């Protein structure tokens, strides 16, 4: 079966520091995947490369059914191709309402003139309400995003991702700063989303990863160290040495 995203032999160096070193990693069309690894393992850089923020020195990033390379594309083109990203720190548009935030993310035409002449439709309104329902922000639709609690902002950002309707969701630390109940809900949202698309979650929190019940990829020094179920990778001696060992040392 052909892959949704194939990252092949990618390397990137910042001022002599090799952030990503010959990294190869693939994602299927509908799967949930967790990426873990110690600080500086290259998790965020990997996301930067896939979303076009960072250009790698070498390697290939091949996307979708048409097998196009993402390397020549701008960030906005890649986003329109169907790759959505949630940042580590919740970044929503704080000066605007929850509804406006979701409306901006909604999968509609992105050109300036289409946007200028954009008219609200019942269909889009319903879609916004569906997404709000999914992330539990129905009551907050008219509130300014800046007034939301930390957890609600995280959900709003996840909601914006869902509204974008991407084929690949890159989610950076979705559970950071959440209460246990909030985490549970976030897990549900992500698992539900992964039924129809690829969802890649970067996370530090092992408990959260365990609850996702998915394939885990361990990154270390910019390349894949191990891959498999959480139990498999956590019992892998190299992983224990470089990652878990460090935490208990």
């Amino acid at each position, binding site marked *: 079966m052909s892959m949704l995203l194939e990252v092949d032999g990618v390397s990137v160096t910042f001022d002599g520091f090799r952030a990503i070193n010959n990294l190869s990693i693939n994602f299927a069309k509908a799967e949930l995947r967790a990426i873990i690894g110690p600080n500086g393992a290259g998790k965020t850089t990997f996301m930067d490369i896939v*979303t076009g923020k960072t250009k790698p020195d070498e390697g290939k990033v091949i996307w979708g059914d048409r097998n196009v390379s993402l390397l020549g594309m*701008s*960030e*906005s083109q890649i*986003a329109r191709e169907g790759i959505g990203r949630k940042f580590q720190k919740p970044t929503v*548009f704080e000066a605007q309402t929850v509804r406006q935030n979701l409306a*901006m993310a909604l999968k509609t035409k*992105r*050109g300036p003139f289409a946007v200028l002449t*954009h008219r609200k439709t019942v269909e889009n309104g319903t879609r916004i309400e569906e997404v709000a329902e999914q992330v539990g922000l129905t009551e907050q639709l008219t509130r300014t995003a800046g007034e939301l609690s930390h957890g609600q902002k995280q959900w709003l950002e996840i909601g914006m991702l869902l509204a974008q309707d991407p084929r690949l969701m890159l989610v950076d630390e979705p559970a950071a700063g959440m209460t246990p109940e909030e985490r549970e809900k976030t897990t549900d949202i992500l698992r539900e989303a992964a039924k129809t698309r690829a969802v890649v979650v970067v996370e530090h929190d092992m408990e959260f990863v365990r609850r996702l019940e998915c394939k885990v990829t361990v990154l270390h020094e910019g390349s894949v160290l191990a891959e498999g179920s959480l139990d498999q990778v956590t019992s892998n001696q190299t992983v224990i040495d470089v990652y878990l060992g460090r935490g208990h040392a």
Partner: protein
Amino acid sequence: MKKTFIGQNPSVMWFLLALAVFTLAVTLLSEATGIGIISTSFVKTLGKTLCLCLVAVAMDVVWGYCGILSLGHFAFFGIGGYAIGMWLMYARTESIVLESLVGQPIPPTPQEISDAIGNQIFGVVGSSEFPAIWAFADSLVLQLLMIVLVPGLLALIFGWLAFRSRVTGVYLSILTQAMTLALALYLFQNDSGLRGNNGLSGLQNIPGFENTSQAWVSVIFFWASALALAAGYLFFAWVVSGKMGSVVKGIRDNEARVRFLGYHVESYKLFIFTITAIVAAIAGALYYPQAGIINPGEITPIASIYLAVWVAIGGRGRLYGAVIGAAFVSLLSSWFTGGGAPDIPLGFYTIQWTDWWLVLLGVSFVAVTLFFPKGIGGLFDYLVRKPS
């Protein structure tokens, strides 16, 4: 659609109403159309102020809404003034030359007429040749088109180069300052084709309206300025409302995030930069016939900085704030620098406002930035109860 748009933006309706009342009041008090309490020169000052309000609204859209601190928008204002000034000067000189040649035994050839006009206009910089940029100066329609096309194209090319290279923040501001400085320095040259530092003058004399008194001309231009401000305000209020407004404000607050949502940020910036440049030029084209003269000193970098100061004092990110800031500060400025404000004798030193006004303005700017970031327009937030 318009009805719902106004309904959703009550401030637009209030602004248009206030502008209409103001226009009516000035009309009824002017020399030409009213009881004559307001002098013709003051009507011109008010008309010019409305043009400054319009360019301030454009500045607010590009800076307050889109987050691009352009310190070069007055260049576009000046280009608009030059574009209309070329036609005004050409057409008026032509009619004077033709008048002086009436009754000559041998009718003058077109070449002789052209030379005579050229001599009149460019004699001051030691030339009589028409430079290429005056090619359309004999046609009002083409020259009106230039008001839109020249600044539009300049903004498009400049913006494309700057935004494409992801130049942002203070670097972009410096670049826009360089643009207006370069343009001013070029125009200061005698061989720039626009009469060097003499600029274009006599613009208050409108060809075809020689028999109309300046009192009437001033009122007509005042009306035109009010109409332009109303139209510009309405247009920009529409642009920054709805989804476009969301995206534009999103770019201001977090450009990268907007990009990852799939919007091509550069196109949006270019769009906003260009339409605001065009509106600035239209404001300039209405301003300079009321001022009577334009010279390169008008578009030196300081002018664009003042523009930013007006918007900051009035309140960024709200269109009426820009109008209030521009009107308030520019009128106050002419009061202080025009000798309207009484000097303050301190015994050992006398504060003369013509010298000290800039200090006062500078201090107010710093104070507003530090203590009232919402500007004068922010006061309206206390009047209107926010719907929660």
